[in-house]
């Protein structure tokens, strides 16, 4: 017995020391840019979602890792009424908020936090509404103020959302970063301390990581949340090494200065695939790169002209040259991975002769026009200038002379919103996996005045289908309407749909448990490093 006891204590001592001596696991992510801030309610950029929404916070419901489907998170379950107007959420018990240097939570997450998080964005008279001069871009952008009628606390662990009209994408919207849940208790404490803006700059969430330090344009440092409700993450420290240039990111990854990098330069992909120390991850992106005609200008108001010009573009060649073959030629405005994608739609065939004939029929001769090319690189379009050059050359073959125009990004957005372009290159990456997020946001009639419909195309038949689909809760019924809408779109051709790109990320070989997100988000709660 005594011997056993000694053996046991030696063994436990060994275990203890080996645990103590194990070096903390620090995972370094070479991120592409600084977050705009640490409150995901304010911002719309991916860098902020990764650094704030995904690392620090949770939402009532969340997208399953690697999928566009919604799964329970801070809400354990929910019920939707038959008329689609009430959503009742049962909240998870025992979820702890982070402890920071200014704040130690006295209670677990509950309904008050949900009310605070939404009311702050929604109610102009909420004491926090104006704190940090907040603009709640996504909350407004996803029409939440129009959709929401009331949010009520039924009891500490039950919250009821009542809507003004049925809104099919509601759950998906609640999984987006702007719907992150902040601590109401922390907000109260900070308000009393007369430093309410700390809620936004020194974040306290329920997420898998807790913020340790941030130096803009240099790094963000997190530590694992020991009390995380899904269990403590496998890594101890998470560091974002902010590296804006994609060539430098690649050098850093090779040198072992980071473990994962997003947005590689397409031209480096071959070398990456041949490198034995790294793994190239890829996923079909939830995006579309498109080429919009300004349908308010002659001759682009004529669908025949648009069709003819579409037929003159060799999209396969663009896919090879601009996307390095990484993607699919697009025929619909929504990507093939999205439900309701209409595979029966036939694309306009690349046919120079037919294009010429159709142009002639429409009475267009010696057309002189312009092609606007974006100055920025995006996953949906890695090189707009090159793309514009290729379209320019293709069009020359059908007798159309186009001049390529480009501006600095802010100017590009501003001028194209005013409709100064004849044709322009643009694109979109989905927010919530719902077709409405593409079809209504980019091609709906309301989107004309918002400036996101840069074809200025308002087609009543298309718009009615999309608006009606939004009010139905049955996905199969909605899908039917969206399929019809895609047919209208193809017939009218307000855009040439160019491509849906594949999104790449590159990881070192010792990284495990990482899953790419279709939304382009980066989550590290399940990531691990093996020796």
């Amino acid at each position, binding site marked *: 017995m005594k011997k056993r006891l000694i053996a046991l204590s030696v063994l436990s001592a060994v275990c203890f020391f080996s645990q103590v001596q194990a070096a903390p696991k*620090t995972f*370094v992510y070479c991120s592409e840019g*600084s977050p*705009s*801030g640490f409150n995901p309610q304010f911002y*719309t*950029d991916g860098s902020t979602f990764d650094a704030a929404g995904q690392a620090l916070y949770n939402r009532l419901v969340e997208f399953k890792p690697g999928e566009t489907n919604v799964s329970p998170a801070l809400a354990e379950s929910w019920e939707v009424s038959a008329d689609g107007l009430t959503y009742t959420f049962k909240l998870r018990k025992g979820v702890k908020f982070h402890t920071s240097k200014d704040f130690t939570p006295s209670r677990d997450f509950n309904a008050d936090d949900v009310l605070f998080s939404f009311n702050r964005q929604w109610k102009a008279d909420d004491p926090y509404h104006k704190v*940090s*001069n*907040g*603009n709640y*871009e996504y909350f*407004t*952008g996803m029409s939440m103020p129009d959709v929401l009628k009331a949010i009520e606390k039924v009891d500490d662990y039950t919250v009821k959302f009542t809507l003004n009209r049925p809104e099919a994408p509601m759950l998906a919207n609640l999984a987006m970063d702007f719907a992150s849940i902040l601590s109401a208790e922390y907000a109260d404490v900070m308000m009393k301390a007369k430093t309410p*803006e700390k809620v*936004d*700059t020194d974040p306290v969430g329920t997420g898998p990581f807790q913020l*340790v*330090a941030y*130096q*803009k*344009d*240099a*790094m963000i*440092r997190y530590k694992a949340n020991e009390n995380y409700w899904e269990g403590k993450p496998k890594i101890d420290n998470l*560091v974002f*090494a*902010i*590296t*804006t*240039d994609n*060539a*430098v990111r690649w*050098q*850093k990854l*090779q*040198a072992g*200065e980071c473990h994962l990098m997003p947005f590689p330069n397409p031209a480096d992909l071959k070398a990456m695939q041949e490198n034995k120390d790294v793994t190239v991850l890829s996923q079909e992106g939830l995006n579309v790169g498109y080429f919009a005609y300004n349908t308010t200008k002659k001759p682009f108001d004529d669908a025949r002209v648009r069709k003819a010009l579409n037929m003159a573009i060799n999209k396969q060649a663009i896919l090879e040259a601009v996307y390095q073959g990484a993607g699919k030629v697009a025929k619909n405005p929504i990507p093939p991975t999205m439900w309701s994608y209409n595979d029966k739609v036939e694309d306009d065939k690349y046919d120079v002769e037919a294009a010429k004939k159709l142009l002639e029929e429409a009475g267009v001769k010696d057309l002189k026009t312009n092609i606007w090319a974006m100055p920025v690189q995006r996953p949906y379009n890695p090189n707009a200038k090159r793309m514009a050059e290729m379209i320019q050359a293709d069009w020359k073959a059908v007798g159309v002379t186009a001049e390529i125009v480009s*501006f*600095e*990004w*802010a*100017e590009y*957005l*501003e*001028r194209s*919103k005013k409709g100064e372009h004849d044709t322009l290159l*643009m*694109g*979109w990456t989905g927010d919530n996996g719902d077709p409405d997020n593409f079809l209504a*946001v980019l091609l709906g009639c*309301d*989107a004309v*005045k*918002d*400036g*996101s*419909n840069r074809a200025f195309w308002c087609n009543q038949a298309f718009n009615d289908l999309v608006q009606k689909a939004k009010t139905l809760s049955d996905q199969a019924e909605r899908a039917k309407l969206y399929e019809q809408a895609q047919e209208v779109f193809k017939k009218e051709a307000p855009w040439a749909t160019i491509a849906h790109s594949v999104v790449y990320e590159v990881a070192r070989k010792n990284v495990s448990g990482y899953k790419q997100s279709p939304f382009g988000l980066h989550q590290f709660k399940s990531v691990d490093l093996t020796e």
Partner: protein
Amino acid sequence: MFKFILNKIVLIIPTFFGITLAAFLFVRLLPGDPITILTGERGVSPERRAEMVAQLGLDQPLLVQYFNYLLNILQGDFGQSLSTHRPVVEEFFERLPATLELSFFAILIAIILGVPAGIIAAVKRGRWPDHLLMGVALTGYSMPIFWWGLLLIMLFSTQLGWTPVSGRLDIINYYFDPITGFMVIDAWLSGQEGAVKSALRHLILPSVVLSTIPMAVIARQTRSAMLEVLGEDYIRTAYAKGLPTWRVIGIHALRNALITVVTVIGLQIGTLVAGAVLTETIFAWPGVGKWMIDAISHRDYPAVQGGLLFIAMLVMLVNLMVDLMYGWINPRVRDGK
């Protein structure tokens, strides 16, 4: 001397107001506004846009906006960044140490290599060392910084593994809170073993890259200043007196050539602080150059205005110091003769 300094300082005041106006107008002349950039591909409804414009105070007449801005500046309030909602002063001065640290090492390298190169080229005028050094200087001056930086990274970091690729510290092994913002000093204060060495190693490549152009300029200017001085009568006299060459060149000639050299170095410091943008971008160096570029592309009006103003002040300060140094090197300047 006191009057000399006072004169210089009095001249700074109108310059200051000129800069506030220029900065204010410059950023507003750019097409597009902060709201356009904020909403990006998504767009925004006209009603919502009007609300946001009002919230940012951009709906008021330009003149009113400018006077409000001036009034606030005089009270020490430089406004809040539109994108981070933090005071511009805080944002700027948090990042200034990184730029100063980098510029300091860059200018050090530029002087240590540039001045002797210029002297040697002048002394060996027309012979092969002159051609070689000036050829190198011309190459350095014409080097596209981005390409040059990446080339050095690929050679020294990825291939040879001698220096880190980017950043200011080995973030896997070291972490400490910034105290001064100067990484080398903070590393030393942290007491963590190897941290100072890591910080210095991270400084090598960026300072070499940043020093390239100033080094070339300094070398060329030193050469021409030296050539001018070496042709003077008193140099011939010094030689005739039988002084050793190193004394004639190192003391008699150099001291008089220094005036030009100091001017050039002063000008280069100004350019370094304002112009480290590319180097900061390549090496992920969180300095003010990169911050300014971001502010401009986001149409972050208060940040651009504040940043331009601070950088201008800094350049003026350096110029003032250069002026004072003239006085010290050459008494004729200070006495206004």
